[in-house]
């Protein structure tokens, strides 16, 4: 559930930061997606992340919406710290408006998807775009491979070889933003 302030991050900000800063290693290169039990329209898969000195436990979570939106998301969880993802990338979905507390000029408050999310020191979730994402956003929308490797760069995940996302029902490939109203009958 979305909360205005994530108290856990606020109270443990240094630890939260170090989870992002440390170089994490992906334990396997095959990410197998399965049906999400809590959400009919989505498939998810997890792979463990190894931290240097094994001082944290973490996982990479890949989710794919097979419903109307056909978007995908990459998240880094640290279950010991909190149930919410620490860092994430969304390929599509609502544009984020960074809150008044961020004190930005109006023009800079909007961050359209695809975008990254992280928390600030007050436990407030903020969205941002990397330079690569800002300059060529559509090339990331359908290309999960490109998006994933960019996510790994941004979140310091190291991996040997190339990562494969395995899903039975939906071949992932290059495509545009999906039409959420396809096939919907309005009276």
């Amino acid at each position: 559930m979305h909360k205005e302030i994530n108290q856990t991050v606020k109270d443990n900000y240094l630890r939260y930061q170090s989870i992002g800063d440390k170089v994490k290693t992906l334990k396997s290169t095959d990410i197998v997606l399965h049906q999400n039990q809590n959400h009919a329209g989505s498939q998810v898969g997890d792979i463990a992340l190894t931290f240097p000195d094994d001082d944290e436990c973490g996982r990479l979570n890949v989710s794919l919406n097979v419903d109307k939106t056909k978007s995908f998301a990459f998240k880094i969880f640290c279950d010991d710290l909190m149930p919410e993802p620490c860092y994430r990338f969304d390929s599509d979905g609502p544009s984020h408006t960074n809150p008044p507390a961020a004190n930005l000029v109006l023009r800079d408050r909007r961050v359209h998807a695809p975008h990254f999310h992280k928390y600030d020191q007050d436990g407030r979730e903020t969205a941002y775009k990397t330079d690569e994402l800002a300059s060529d956003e559509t090339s990331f929308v359908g290309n999960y491979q490109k998006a994933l490797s960019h996510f790994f760069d941004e979140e310091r995940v190291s991996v040997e070889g190339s990562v494969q996302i395995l899903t039975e029902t939906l071949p992932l490939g290059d495509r545009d933003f999906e039409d959420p109203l396809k096939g919907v009958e309005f009276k």
Partner: protein
Amino acid sequence: MIDLMSNVEGLYAEIRSDFDSMWSIKDRNATVEFITPYTTLGDDAISVFVTQRDDEYVVSDGGRLYDVGKEQGVELDGHKGFHYGELITKFSVKVVEQAQTKRRFFYKMVSDMKMLSAAIYDVAHFQEAMANAVYLDTMFAPEEPRESVYFRRKVNEALKQKTRDLSSEKKKYEYIRDDKIRFCRFSSGIREVGTNKLWLGMTICRSNINNYRHSVYQAEFGFRYANQFLPDADLRMSTVVDKLPTALVNNREAGLLQVVMNDWPKRRIKSHSFDEIIGMASMDTLFAA
């Protein structure tokens, strides 16, 4: 700083241009997503999706409100406080639910292109009102009651265990949690079997100020009336707090706890209602006397 009144036109132009810059579109094949300048309390920009069916334009939320409900774990029409029906009437929107996915869409249909802006305006504001009704109820609602319940449970479990551990042939303790005790807001009690000695425990969860205040009010009530409800008992009443206070507990809101905790935990509480305050870790001391 530019004088406000000397440059009204310029400022007006600049502000409008800033607001305009909030608009954006996304091409979604047969649908256009208009990203409006409006934003929900969840910090999501409000988008309106426009598509065409036969000779009419459909202006809808694209299923975004359904997503808000999912994300916040609620049914949009499942709670009076969301004002679901009222908002649908107020903004004159229609609802369609997809049989297979149960995904719900809120929309308006217009055939005259001139009415498109009005429909976008309405659907955007409907989404804003509906999403915010949900967020006000969920996002800002204190989660902490659960935390205080969790803490009380933890204390009670520990006390049950202690009661068992410390009971011997000579002295027998009994853990009690009956209606009388709960009526005067105590979490639990321990009776020394065969005597009228009764220890009552009140948990105070200090995870946030609302919680704290609530716990303290409960304690106030309990400590004040316990004697009347349990006239025959030789009472000893304690407060168990979840976090050891560091310096000073000065609860102005309740005007109740004024305890210098520096010399914790030796000092007895001088307040009219508290016998003592103990941390969870020092629950052992309860049985020392």
